[in-house]
């Protein structure tokens, strides 16, 4: 029973970070690169993949730092006299240093061992060191008090996937909207903001996903149904776009 509830915890966190607490739509993290690099689907995919990659590395790493160095009493493994230390005021500087170093390191390693991957991800890596989504991932990991290393890894990957989905969706919409008759002052940035707002409203409907009932079985059903729902949503959005397209043509 404990193992199933453990799995449930993972599944819940996974879907929660992708849909309910989506980095872009719920907390506006990484908006700068989200707006700047979403003109084409291909580049958006590259950046999204790089974000998943870097979040999957930095969140668990910063979790270890937080647990064994930064938290109040975390230094107790050095000896009982260290129990009173609370270094949490250093977390900003430690987290950002870890992120900057890891990004640099990942860039070097990827360049050395996989030139193909480097060609597709490489140009985005330096951009990512200052992406709010990456630091935000670590800071939310800390403030939400994620309990285990496994959950931290899960959180990093799933919030990365959420970000990836968001930038993929907006890039696809922006590619299509080029053919629509948008009022001149709204073109480009303005309409992107408003579309993102509307998408965020859409994503709010996922909020009911994990509060469906107090029985575990109910929870399981709701989480299973999520995937097709998301696809339907995208299809609906696409068909809306084509309708607009048809009208303008």
């Amino acid at each position, binding site marked *: 029973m404990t193992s199933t509830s453990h799995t449930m915890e993972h599944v819940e966190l996974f879907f929660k970070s992708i849909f309910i607490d989506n980095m872009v739509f719920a*907390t506006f993290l990484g908006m*700068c690169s989200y707006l700047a690099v979403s003109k084409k689907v291909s580049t958006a995919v590259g950046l999204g993949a790089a974000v998943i990659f870097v979040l999957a590395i930095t969140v668990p790493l910063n979790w270890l730092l937080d647990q064994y160095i930064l938290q109040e009493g975390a230094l107790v493994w050095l000896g009982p006299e260290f129990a009173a230390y609370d270094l949490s005021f250093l977390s*900003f500087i430690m987290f*950002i240093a870890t992120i900057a170093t890891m990004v640099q390191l990942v860039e070097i390693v990827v360049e050395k061992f996989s030139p193909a991957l480097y060609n597709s991800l490489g140009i985005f890596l330096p951009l990512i*060191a200052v992406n*709010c989504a990456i630091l935000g991932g670590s800071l939310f990991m800390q403030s939400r008090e994620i309990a285990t290393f496994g959950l931290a890894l899960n959180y990093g990957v799933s919030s990365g996937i959420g970000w990836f989905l968001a930038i993929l969706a907006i890039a696809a919409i922006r590619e299509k*909207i080029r053919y629509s008759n948008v009022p001149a002052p709204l*073109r480009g*940035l303005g309409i992107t903001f408003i579309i993102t707002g509307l998408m965020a409203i859409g994503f709010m409907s996922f909020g009911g996903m994990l509060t469906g009932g107090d029985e575990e079985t109910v929870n399981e059903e709701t989480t299973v149904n999520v995937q097709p729902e998301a696809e339907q949503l995208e299809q609906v959005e696409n068909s809306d776009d084509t309708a607009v397209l048809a009208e303008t043509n």
Partner: protein
Amino acid sequence: MGLLSKKDANLILDPLTDNNPITIQVLGICSALAITAELEASIVMAISVIFVLGVGNVVISLMRNIIPSKIRIIVQLIVVATLVIIVDLVLKAFAYELSKTLSVFVGLIITNCIIMGRFEAFALGNGVWKSFLDGIGNALGYGVILIIVGFFRELLGSGTLLGIPVLGDPIAKTGLYSIGYENNGFMLLSPMALIVVGIIIWIQRTKNKALIEDN
């Protein structure tokens, strides 16, 4: 403007309107939107960014000749992180409730693109006084948008400004509420921040046609 030459004054005034960091340069949106549901939080955020960017630009400008260009990103991040820790500790000491509201978004000033953007684009190549003005100007431009968004979201969303009811009492039905006005709770939700900024961009570009971009 005895103290400031015309060129210096432009460093401050340009980012307020035609070169606004949020609506034109598209920088620093990440931390801008999540905390604008209340005017007070927006103002505190604006002041924090003014402090960090003003001081940070001066520090980077002072060190610009001794920073090796290969590790400049890390140096910049350390400078910002230090300043943000100061802001965070000050907020925790003097405005604890507010620092709870802002939660991780104080920390996210570190990766606020405006800050890195101004360090890279300005402070690394200009003198101390100019960098200071540029920092203050851009942070003000950011703050203005934040305060406008915060103003409308709090006014329309909860009928208050800085926590003070200005439209009357919704329960006792006084003021505007006596003629059937209702608060629009939707304004308090995060998506509306995006739409309000979209509308600000729309208005700004309608007034200044030169800013209109291609699809």
